[in-house]
C-alpha cells in the first residue's frame, strides 16, 4: 500500500530523515516509535506533503507522491491527524466535519446554495459516530476537552475517506484512562473502515497491545522494523530505547 524508499530530508545540515525505507502493507495497523527528535513527525510531514524530501520515493499503490502538495496528497487518499489538534475553534463539531466533507467532495467553493449541503450530512454523521463525538455535535470546537479535540482532529482526517491514515501521537496529553479509551476508538475505527493506519506513539504498552508492525526510528534512521515480538527481542532497540520504559510496562 505505502512503500517508503530511501527517504531523506535535511534541515540546515542536520539529517532529520536519513535513508528511511519502510513498507506498510494494505490494511495494516502500524506504529512508528522512537525518542523525541528521532524524526517521526518529520517522517509524517514528508508523507503528507508538508515538506519536500531531498531524496527518496514515497510510493502509494505504486505511484510516487514525493514532493506533491498537501491538497494533492489528500486527494490521493492520505489523511492525517496532528500532534496538537488543528481544528477550527469557531465552528461547532458538526459544522467543522460538514465543512471537511464538502471540501472532500469538491463543493467547498459553491456559492449558490446554503450551508450545509444536504448530501454531506450522511458522511458527516457516519464519521462523528465513528469517533464518538455525536453527543457533542453542537459544541463549539474551542470548547471541547483536549481529548475530544484530538478526536475531532482525527474525524476531520477520516472525512476524506483515507486509504492511509496517519495519526501523530493520538494519545498525547491524556491521562492513562483516557488514553485507552482513545486507542480503543482508534482500533475500532480501523477495524470498521479497514484502512491502512500508521500512528506515532510514546506509550509502549499501547504500542505493543495493538500494533501489528512497529518501526523504530532513531536520529532519522530506521533502527528496526518488525512485529511487536521481533521488536521486543531486538537487542539494539532494547538497549537504546526500550530499556526503562519496557521494563516499567512489563514488570
Amino acid at each position: 500500500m505505502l512503500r517508503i524508499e530511501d527517504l531523506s530530508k535535511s534541515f540546515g545540515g542536520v539529517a532529520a530523515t536519513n535513508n528511511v525505507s519502510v513498507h506498510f502493507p494494505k490494511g495494516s495497523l502500524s506504529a512508528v516509535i522512537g525518542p523525541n527528535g528521532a524524526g517521526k513527525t518529520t517522517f509524517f510531514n514528508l508523507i503528507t506533503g508538508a515538506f519536500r524530501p531531498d531524496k527518496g520515493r514515497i510510493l502509494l499503490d505504486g505511484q510516487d507522491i514525493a514532493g506533491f502538495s498537501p491538497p494533492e496528497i489528500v486527494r490521493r487518499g492520505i489523511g492525517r491527524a496532528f500532534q496538537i489538534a488543528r481544528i477550527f475553534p469557531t465552528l461547532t463539531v458538526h459544522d467543522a466535519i460538514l465543512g471537511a466533507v464538502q471540501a472532500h467532495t469538491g463543493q467547498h467553493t459553491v456559492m449558490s446554495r446554503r450551508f450545509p449541503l444536504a448530501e454531506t450530512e450522511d458522511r458527516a454523521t457516519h464519521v462523528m459516530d465513528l469517533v464518538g463525538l455525536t453527543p457533542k455535535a453542537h459544541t463549539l470546537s474551542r470548547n471541547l476537552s483536549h481529548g475530544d479535540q484530538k478526536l475531532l482532529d482525527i474525524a476531520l482526517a477520516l472525512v476524506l475517506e483515507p486509504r492511509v491514515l496517519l495519526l501523530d501521537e493520538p494519545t498525547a496529553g491524556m491521562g492513562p484512562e483516557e488514553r485507552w479509551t482513545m486507542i480503543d476508538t482508534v482500533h475500532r475505527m480501523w477495524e470498521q473502515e479497514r484502512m491502512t493506519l500508521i500512528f506515532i506513539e510514546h506509550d509502549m504498552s499501547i504500542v505493543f497491545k495493538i500494533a501489528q508492525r512497529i518501526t523504530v526510528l532513531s536520529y532519522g534512521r530506521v533502527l528496526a522494523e518488525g512485529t511487536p515480538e521481533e521488536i521486543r527481542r531486538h537487542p539494539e532497540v532494547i538497549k537504546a530505547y526500550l530499556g526503562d520504559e519496557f521494563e516499567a510496562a512489563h514488570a
Partner: protein
Amino acid sequence: MGNRSSLARDCLIALVAFLVLAALPYIFPSRGFTDFVVRLAAFGIFATSLNLLVGYSGMESFGHGLYFGLGCYSFALIMQNFAVPIPVAFLLTIALSVAVALVVGAICVNLSEIYFAFLTLAFQMLLHSLIIAWTPITGGDQGLTGGIPRPPFLGVRLDDYYHLYLFSAGLLILCLLAMYHIVQSPFGYTLRMIRDNASRAPFLGISVFRVRLMAYIIAGAFGAIGGMIMSLFVSGAFPDFAYWTVSGEGIFMIMLGGITAFLGPVVGAAIFLLLNDMVTKLTTHYGIVLGAVILLFALGLRKGLLDFIVDHWRDRQQSALAAEGRTASSPPSAKPVSAGE
C-alpha cells in the same frame, strides 16, 4: 443547526425591509434623513464588504478604500465621458474593480498579516497618488466636478432625491442579501475554516490561495458599489474617497458594530455617521471626540455593539448545552481493554 435561514426567508425579510425603508420618507420627510440613508448605503455596503475579508476570512486589509475610490472615480468618469445608461456604467465599474482586485489580490493574498495590511495600503495610496497626479482626467486634488449625468433608466430618475434614496436603499438591501448568502454558503464556511486554521485547510484538500483570492475579488466588487453610490451622492468624485482614511473609517465601522454579526458593519456605519453628524454640529473639535470614541472601543469595549449582544446570547446557549452534556449519561463505547498486564 435549525436556526439557519433559507434564501427564500431572507428574500422575504429583504423585501419587507425595502418596503419599510420606502415608506419612511413619508414619516420623516426631511432631506437630512434621505441623505443619511444614501450615505449609510454607501458606507454600509463598503464596511460589510470589508468585513468579508476581516471578519470572515481573517484577511486584515488596510487598503480596502482602494475599491471605494476606484468605484467612485470610474463610475463618475464613465458617466461624464461616455453616453451610456447608468446600469451599464455600473456593470463596467464592477468589471474594472474585479480586474484590479484580481491583480492586487493575486499579489497580496498569501502574505502574512502585517505585510498584507501594508501592501493593500500601498496599492490604495498608489491609486490615490495617480488620482492626484492625473489632473487632466481626474481633476487632481480638486476632484471631479461638473456633476454626473443621470439619464433615466427603467423609470428611475436619479436626479430626484427620493428616487436616489430608493435606489440606494434598494442597492443596500440587495448587496447585503447577496453578501449574506455568500457568507452562509459552503464557500462562506470554507472562508471561516481558513480564518480559523489556515494550516489545516490544505490537508483537507482546500486551495487556500484560490479561496482567499475569490473572497478578495468579491469584497472588492462590493466595495466599489459603495463608491458608486457615493459618487452619485456627491455628484462627482474626490481624492479623499481614495485616501487611507476611508480604510481606517471602514475598520472603525466594523469595530463599532461588530465583526462577528453579519449586520455588525452596517450598524457600525450607522453609528459612525450619526456620531460624525452629531459631533460636527456640536463642536469644531471633531477629532478629539471621534478619537476618544475610537479609543474607548479599541481599548475598552474591544467588541462591537452587535457582537456584544450576539455573543452574550450565544454564551448562554453554550453553557446550557454544556450543562446538558454533564447530566446526560456518558456515550456508550466498546469496553476499554485494561491497561497493561
